[in-house]
């Protein structure tokens, strides 16, 4: 295909003569791919570790049997069930200290291990014999091995009671866990014949067929979760990241689109010459696509490297947020799967093709002869504006339609996308109207030219301005949402964490001991007992919380709305507060009635209030604690909140730790929990802010590159003015004024659009995604700040081309006339 090669060479020669344009195109592609794949890398990294953790727990995705009253039970149950044909497998788990660090030691039985847990396949793939036969193996994630400061093959000592088998790194494993054979675990933990739980495999029997309580034992079945808890809990976080990645990607594509559009415009004569010299339309189209795909592949590859760098830079923040908010462990170094690379490249190529679609379509229908009509550009521009306007209107109608009729998260995003697109498409139409109005008022020749010329420049600038509009609007939108969330979250945290110390006892016996112990202490002003149980309502799990009748709750509980005497009714009647999520899902509100399935028959309650429960994927009900115990007599009474004067908190906690051996998870003081939550919350927004800045930066680059490319093609317009006696400095000043004016109009339009975006995020997307709605707040200072940033970005972007113009050699301007034939 030498002919195709020749055509490709001719097409590529354009970039050699216009390196700035190629740079623009590549910057767009690289920025789009880098931001998108960076975010995807973070998401992928997180998901992989959730899956590893879940597979390892063997609890999230596998049904299991536990003894609710005791931490461990005899392995006789295992033998008995196995004989009865049940595919059960024993696990013994405890925390141990290795080199001064606390890790989980997990003893498993590899032969009976259900195949669906990843850890079993990891072992099966490895040498099973080496794992079970003495001295055995200790499987550990490579990053944990590093954290422990140990080398592969080392045999760490545990609790004075024994030595672990040689460590062997295993990349699939979750961090912070050591896996050994169950016999080894029983020996090292000094729990001969004991197991923590029995995993129930899916192989022969359906796990549901297992009786809830296995006869002859005290074991209880725990149903598997369809989705891992971590994956579900962190959905909101990843959704936020993904949405950002996508938006940055789109802004990047705007640059690509504008660069390709300009290159196409400039190459029209070349394309026509090629056709006239005997290149068929098909060959030309194919070669143009090949050229584009090659550029996209290159840009995509560089972009992926950029994505890696971005992901690596953000990973510490993301990992800290996920650990703090959800307890999810992320390894500190990125490890990316091949799919990530492929998806990134595919995204880059598809994005480039999408961005070039309009140009490609125009080229496919390119008439061989240039239309020799005067004012052709005016007609073309009018047609183009008209089409954009119609499209913008259609998009707006679509957005409203989806808003009214759509009822899913996807619909929420569709509303956002349609709204943003509509605004972007409407922008040139609006700007054109503004400029036409300006032109009407112009009396003198120069101002009249100014307005007319600005209008003519619009098509070349509009894509960059659209990118600026979108980036600003998204910044305003997300900024407003984050600020609203931040303000709300802090208030909500104060309400929900109203006790000073939280305790969760291991069992009822210990709970009773703790209660007695607390009663004797004068520094504890109140003990607020709490209880929790879970029921199924309309096929989904719902938590029921028992609340004590105490002023603490009345003062702080984050009620959104309630009947006038809500708290009195809650404690006196058959009444409940429901969480906002549940209220939305079950279509219940204050005044509705709800039937709760209880052991002794359904319990009907009046809904007397709705409260905020941000971040909880499950629905929740709050009822009086005594009523809860009456209807659910089995509910363990193991949780308390304590009211303690601030100066006594540390003392109480220290004393309890000593008296009851409670660890940090079972005993937490409010101030630390809250401080930690807020700190992590702020770090979460550090990620958002970084992505925000990236997006705005990309939009700034889009503006700069468009202006630079335009400045060259604008010389024919400026040269005649220079020739009739307007200085280059004056021309430069006019250009500056013009760009700043359109940028200002764009930025001013972006503010209301951004608030609309924020409203969509808060009232549509969040509600659909998480079931709760934040109060919408406007932060004027933030808006002003963004406006300033936008104007500075526009100024910086304008400066370079303007300086170029002001310093232009007269010879360059003369050449315009020489070539104008």
């Amino acid at each position, binding site marked *: 295909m030498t002919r195709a090669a020749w055509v490709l060479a001719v097409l590529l020669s*354009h970039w050699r003569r216009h390196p700035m344009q190629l740079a623009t195109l590549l910057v767009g592609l690289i920025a789009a791919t880098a931001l998108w794949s960076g975010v995807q890398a973070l998401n992928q990294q997180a998901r992989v570790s959730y899956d590893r953790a879940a597979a390892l727990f063997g609890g999230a995705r596998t049904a299991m049997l536990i003894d609710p009253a005791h931490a461990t039970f005899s392995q006789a149950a295992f033998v008995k069930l196995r004989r009865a044909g049940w595919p059960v497998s024993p696990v013994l788990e405890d925390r141990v200290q290795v080199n001064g660090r606390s890790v989980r030691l997990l003893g498993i039985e590899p032969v009976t291990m259900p195949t669906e847990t990843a850890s079993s396949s990891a072992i099966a793939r490895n040498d099973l014999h080496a794992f079970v036969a003495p001295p055995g193996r200790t499987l550990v994630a490579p990053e944990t091995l590093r954290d422990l400061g140990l080398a592969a093959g080392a045999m760490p000592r545990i609790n004075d009671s024994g030595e672990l088998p040689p460590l062997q790194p295993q990349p699939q494993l979750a961090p912070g866990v050591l896996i050994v054979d169950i016999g080894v675990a029983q020996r090292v933990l000094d729990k001969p014949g004991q197991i923590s739980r029995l995993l129930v495999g899916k192989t022969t029997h359906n796990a549901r067929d297992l009786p809830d309580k296995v006869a002859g034992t005290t074991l209880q079945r725990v149903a598997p979760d369809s989705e891992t808890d971590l994956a579900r809990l962190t959905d909101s976080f990843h959704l936020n990241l993904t949405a950002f990645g996508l938006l940055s990607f789109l802004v990047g594509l705007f640059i690509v689109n504008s660069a390709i559009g300009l290159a196409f415009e400039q190459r029209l004569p070349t394309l026509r010459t090629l056709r006239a010299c*005997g290149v068929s339309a098909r060959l030309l189209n194919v070669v143009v696509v090949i050229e584009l795909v090659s550029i996209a592949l290159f840009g995509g590859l560089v972009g992926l490297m950029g994505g890696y760098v971005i992901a690596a830079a953000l990973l510490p923040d993301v990992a800290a947020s996920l650990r703090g908010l959800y307890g999810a462990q992320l390894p500190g170094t990125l490890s990316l799967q091949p799919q990530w690379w492929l998806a990134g490249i595919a995204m880059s190529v598809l994005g480039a093709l999408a961005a070039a679609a309009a140009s490609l379509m125009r080229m496919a229908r390119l008439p061989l002869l240039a239309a020799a009509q005067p004012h052709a550009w005016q007609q073309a521009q009018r047609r183009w504006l008209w089409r954009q306007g119609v499209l913008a209107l259609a998009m707006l109608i679509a957005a409203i339609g989806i808003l009214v009729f759509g009822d899913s998260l996807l619909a929420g995003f569709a509303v956002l996308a349609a709204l943003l697109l509509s605004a972007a498409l409407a922008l040139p139409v609006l700007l054109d109207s503004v400029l036409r109005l300006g032109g009407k008022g112009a009396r003198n020749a120069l101002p009249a030219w100014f307005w007319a010329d600005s209008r003519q420049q619009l098509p070349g600038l509009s894509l960059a301005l659209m990118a600026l509009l979108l980036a600003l609007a998204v910044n305003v939108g997300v900024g407003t949402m984050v600020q609203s969330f931040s303000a709300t979250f802090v208030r909500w945290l104060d309400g929900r964490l109203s006790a000073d110390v939280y305790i969760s006892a291991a069992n009822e016996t210990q709970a009773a001991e703790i209660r007695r112990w607390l009663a004797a202490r004068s520094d504890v002003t109140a003990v607020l007992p709490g209880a929790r149980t879970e029921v199924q309502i309309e096929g989904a799990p719902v938590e029921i919380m028992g609340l004590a009748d105490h002023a603490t709750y009345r003062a702080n509980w984050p009620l959104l709305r309630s009947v006038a005497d809500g708290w009195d009714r809650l404690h006196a009647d058959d009444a409940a507060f429901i969480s906002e999520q549940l209220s939305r899902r079950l279509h219940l509100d204050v005044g509705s009635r709800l039937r709760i399935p209880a052991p002794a028959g359904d319990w009907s309650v009046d809904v007397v209030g709705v409260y905020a429960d941000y971040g909880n994927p499950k629905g929740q009900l709050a009822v009086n604690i005594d009523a809860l115990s009456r209807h659910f007599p089995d509910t363990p009474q193991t949780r308390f909140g304590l009211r303690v004067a601030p100066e006594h908190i540390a003392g109480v906690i220290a004393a309890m730790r000593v008296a009851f051996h409670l660890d940090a998870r079972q005993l937490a003081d409010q101030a630390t929990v809250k401080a930690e939550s807020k700190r992590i919350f702020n770090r979460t927004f550090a990620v958002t802010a970084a992505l925000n800045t990236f997006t705005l930066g990309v939009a700034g680059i889009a503006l700069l590159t468009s202006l630079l490319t335009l400045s060259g093609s604008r010389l024919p317009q400026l040269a005649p003015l220079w020739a009739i006696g307007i200085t280059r400095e004056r021309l430069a000043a006019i250009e500056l004024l013009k760009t700043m004016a359109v940028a200002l109009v764009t930025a001013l339009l972006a503010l209301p659009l951004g608030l609309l975006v924020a409203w969509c995020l808060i009232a549509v997307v969040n509600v659909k995604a998480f079931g709760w709605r934040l109060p919408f707040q406007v932060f004027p200072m933030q808006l002003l700040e963004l406006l300033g940033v936008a104007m500075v970005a526009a100024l910086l972007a304008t400066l370079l081309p303007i300086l170029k113009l002001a310093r232009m050699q007269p010879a360059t301007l003369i050449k315009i006339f*020489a070539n104008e034939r």
Partner: protein
Amino acid sequence: MIWHCNTAMLVASEPTRSNACPMLKVVNLSKSYRSAQETVHVLRGVDLTVARGESVALTGESGSGKSTLLHLIAGLDEADGGEVWVEEARVTGLADAGRAALRRTRLGLIFQQFNLVPSLSVADNLAFQSRLAGQHDAAWLRELITRLGLDALLKRYPEQLSGGQQQRVAIGRALAVKPALLLADEPTGNLDEATADEVVHLIRDLVARSGCGLLMVTHSARLAAMLDRRLHLRGGLLT
């Protein structure tokens, strides 16, 4: 009347050199431009034949449709009616790929508005159609460069050339393929008289040597007189 030479030889890719077959045959060709306001009938049934090795001058006042006729012959635009044959190929019946192949291998175009590829150097512009057609002949190209006086300009880009220099590069490009038919739309419009005479001599030389046909639009009676025959386009008809 028999318009075409041989109905069995309609394939453009395998032209045979039958002497009975003219290089170009245009039959009853008509073309009009329609716009919202008016319809301009530019060609109203043009008949034209150019024999092998023949050079024909086409004159006519500005706006009479000379360029339009050349565009139709080259298959760059669609005629409303009538037929165009280049050797054995019926241009008016060919699809895009066929027309492209015909232009690439059999035609040399020097048109008013089809100029040079701005991103290619003069040397690359000159060689580019012949390379595309797989008909590159280095010795022939060297001769052309010398005779067109382009030796010193090979490394330059089109924007660094004067109008006449650009025109000469375009002529060189068209001749480099050794076309069967050369279509030239005012090829000497930007040249001084002496150079114009030299260029037309060169073109005539080639026509004589390769036996290709020439159809050249010109406003100059002096140049028109240098060719074998002269046709005048008026009111959409050839006289």
